[in-house]
């Protein structure tokens, strides 16, 4: 049954029909994820032993509510993004389209694998699969992307190695790689120094993958210079899976409270997260390139997830997990909209967004929804992850968390409203004359109407996924209680 998640994979390499097969693959994967979520909701956690070997020896796959939830997010967002960026892929990958989609499939396989695996070493394997695919995809950008990709590769490999070292330490003292068994053993006895060292290494590794400040240096360049078809795909989901792996460590590898009381990793996450929230937002304010701005915004939003995890309370984890979903959807919306704008007009600079609200009403409408969700205007999604994070902060009397989360909302508003302002409030070029020379009561000047006639919306197959993503920020926000009550709360308990 789990095979369905992993199969649509490597066999798809080097096909002329790359797009169709990729879409079929990821669509199938999304369907399988949704099916497993439904299955887990009804029947409880799924276990699957690869190759039929029983867990301590063989590799076990575990799908519980949390992993099914994250898998659904990853695959469904990926599906929409792949549809939406098809034209970009055609343009950017050129004759290497087959390998492009092959890499995309590898990436998604890696990510889904990380989510469903119940084995620490296997997680490393999938981590590296997805990372390698991501490096290669970034390289497709050529030019400055080569440098960005190289930096990503170096830092990413360092992160992977840290993780691997940590797993080595743990294996050394427990003799197992299976998460469930590891937790049992560590619950009995976790005093060994090597376990503490292992925990520290693992968190350094995963922290780098989720771009926790100060380990974020690879991210802005990689997102900015990667091809649009690539950054739209990796920005929403890649770092999220790193964050998920972090949560997994808290829930199913280390004993309850261990990472708070014995090794102060919870506090480290909290502090770095708080710094990251502010740093990311402030850095985003001064960016001129929209992709770079969104990249810094990602750093800030991921830091919010880290804060939720760092608080370590059930409410904090709910906030973190909900924000994984919310941020995936919101960031996908924003990156899709940015990619569409670049596709039709070549615009990447924030200052050039003037008048786009009229020219691309649907794309910019979706962008607006995504932006408002990021700011945290209810009832869009972003509000609720902040709401739970604030509640979690109050619950554990961490007032600084409350303050930072609330202030970050305002900072987010500052950098996102810049774009909305120029898209909606600055006139189209050339500047339309204001009013009085037109016959009685005509609100729109001739010029404006003429410019509107030239309006160019993105092609339908780009606009529709963007709008679907944008609307889902609202729908998921309204339905958040359903998700929290049925999936997240029982999943954490």
């Amino acid at each position, binding site marked *: 049954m789990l095979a369905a998640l992993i199969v649509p994979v490597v066999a798809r390499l080097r096909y002329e029909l790359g797009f169709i097969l990729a879409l079929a693959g990821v669509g199938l994967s999304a369907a399988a994820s949704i099916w497993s979520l439904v299955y887990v909701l009804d029947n409880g956690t799924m276990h699957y032993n690869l190759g039929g070997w029983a867990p301590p020896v063989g590799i076990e796959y575990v799908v519980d509510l949390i992993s099914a939830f994250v898998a659904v997010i990853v695959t469904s967002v990926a599906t929409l993004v792949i549809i939406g960026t098809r034209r970009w892929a055609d343009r950017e990958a050129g004759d290497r389209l087959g390998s492009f989609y092959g890499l995309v499939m590898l990436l998604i396989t890696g990510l889904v694998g990380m989510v469903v695996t119940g084995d620490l070493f296997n997680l490393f394997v999938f981590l590296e699969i997805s990372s390698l695919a991501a490096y290669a995809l970034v390289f497709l950008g050529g030019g400055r992307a080569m440098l960005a990709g190289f930096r990503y590769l170096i830092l990413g490999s360092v992160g992977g190695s840290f993780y691997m070292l940590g797993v080595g330490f743990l294996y050394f003292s427990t003799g197992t790689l299976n998460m469930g068994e590891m937790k049992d053993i560590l619950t009995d006895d976790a005093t060994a120094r090597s376990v503490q060292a292992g925990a520290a290494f693992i968190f350094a590794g995963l922290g780098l993958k989720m771009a926790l400040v100060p380990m974020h240096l690879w991210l802005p360049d990689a997102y900015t210079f990667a091809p649009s078809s690539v950054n739209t795909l990796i920005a929403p989901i890649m770092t999220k899976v790193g964050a998920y792996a972090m949560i997994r460590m808290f829930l199913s590898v280390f004993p309850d409270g261990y990472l708070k009381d014995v090794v102060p990793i919870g506090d480290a996450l909290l502090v770095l997260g708080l710094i990251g929230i502010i740093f990311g937002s402030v850095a985003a304010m001064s960016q001129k390139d929209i992709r770079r701005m969104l990249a810094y915004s990602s750093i800030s939003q991921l830091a919010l997830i880290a804060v939720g995890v760092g608080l370590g309370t059930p409410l904090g984890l709910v906030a973190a997990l909900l924000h994984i979903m919310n941020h995936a959807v919101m960031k996908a919306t924003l990156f899709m909209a940015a990619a569409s704008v670049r596709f039709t007009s070549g615009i990447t600079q924030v200052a050039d967004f003037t008048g786009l609200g009229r020219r691309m009403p649907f794309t910019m409408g979706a962008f607006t929804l995504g932006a408002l969700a990021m700011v945290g205007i209810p009832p869009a999604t972003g509000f609720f992850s902040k709401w739970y994070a604030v509640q979690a902060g109050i*619950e554990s009397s961490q007032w600084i968390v409350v303050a930072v989360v609330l202030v970050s909302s305002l900072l987010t508003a500052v950098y996102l409203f810049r774009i909305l302002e120029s898209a909606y409030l600055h006139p189209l070029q050339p500047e339309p004359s204001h009013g009085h020379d037109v016959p009685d009561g005509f609100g729109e000047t001739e010029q404006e109407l003429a410019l509107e006639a030239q309006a160019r919306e993105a092609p339908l197959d780009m606009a529709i996924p963007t709008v679907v993503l944008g609307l889902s920020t609202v729908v998921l926000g309204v339905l958040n209680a359903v998700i*929290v009550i049925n999936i997240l709360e029982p999943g954490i308990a």
Partner: protein
Amino acid sequence: MIETYSSITPLIAVLLPVAAALLVLLTGERFRNVRDSWSTIAALVMVAVVASMLPDVLDGRVPQTTIIEISPGIDIMLRADSAGMIFALLASSLWVLASVYAVGYMRAEHEHKQTRFFVAYALSLGAAAGVAFSANLLTFVLFYELLTLVTFPLVTHRETEAAIVAGRKYLTYTLSGGLMLIGGTAWVHMLGIDGTFVAGGLMADENISKATAWGLLMLLMVGVGVKSAVMPLHGWLPSAMVAPTPVSALLHAVAVVKAGVFGVVRMIVFVFGAELLREMDAWQVIAVLAAATLLIGSMLALRHDNLKRRLAYSTISHLSYIVLGVALLGPIALTGALLHIVGHGVTKITLFFVAGTINAHTHKENVSQLDGIGRQMPITMGAFTLAALSMAGVPPFVLFTSKFYLGWGAAEVDQQIFMVVYLVSGVLAAGYLFPVVYRAFWKRSPDHVAYGEADMRMVVPLAITGVLALFLGIAPNLPFSFFELATNVATAAFGPVEALAGGAR
């Protein structure tokens, strides 16, 4: 005491403006006559819908809609209680007039992007109705934030540099306020308190420490204090006057700022309750701040030559009349405060309508330019005179009634000093408005153009609101039983309203 029953009517009232906004959007600029009639039709239907709930509410049966569980244990819930009805009735009935006026004004001014304008205009009414009918803190926060959002395009409508700067200022103030509200609301829930509004205070029976109560008070009151422009949180309001006048009229005399003071009512009366605030000695702080705002606002109004700015500071001052009335924690003062919400809405919208009409018709915007204008635009300036008399609290105008109750309420709780504040401010109001009337009717116009009255779509609404300012003073219970609703709220919150002289009824 109050029984609730499930009904979809409050939700319909909130959704009607949204439907109107959609129709406006779909109709577009090409069929502008059709487009512009949607708002008025929706407004009329909305008044009917809201008013249809009135008999039940007066009987103590409150319609309530539970929409969806939005966070574990917390519902999005609308409830048309007496306090909400006052605000909703006021907002929806003034929307009828304001939408007619807006059409006249926007066309006379040749404003651009009128479709966007009317969409946002309608949506802000929906958000205001949502604020009015919110049954718990989280629902209130939701609509309060939405109100901020949909009014942003109205403030920045002109798209000039000044408008954009004002818009940023507006957003900064109101979003910060919203965040305080969110923080406060989250805290209330983390204390394990149900956030549903209860007359007399939802925290009344809870055992919370003084420090916690102060923290909550800070967060929640600053949150609503921003929109009610209590100093020092008032900075956004005068700058927001760059918006087209129908926006200033409806939003900065009715929807937005009244959502703020309505929030103050909700927080003080329905969240904290009199007992807790007396125990904390907190009401004095609010009352002193409000009294200071009231006096300083009036004095600043005296200084401004620009008519709209003068009115803006007058608004700041009058909002604090209401805040002070609520903070006095007495039934009579609260009755006065709620009546003042209605009275000030009707009166101030008249003044803004007049300012906008003069500006659109003659391009004059300063008081010093208005010499002799009363002879040229007698109906317009006549309405202005009625409203000015009302603002100064001359009997039997509506603001006399409310000020009478406010002053009496201050005496009731033995705070005669605040009665003096009310009286002084009344004199100041006469000081900043009567000179306008004097110039308009008694001075000669320096220019030779004979203007005549403006577009009827502007003149008729402002004449109606001007007359209403007088009419509601004589019969505050007609047509919507505002007086009875207000006393109902006050009785439920602070005990019976005693010895009501028959005169006002």
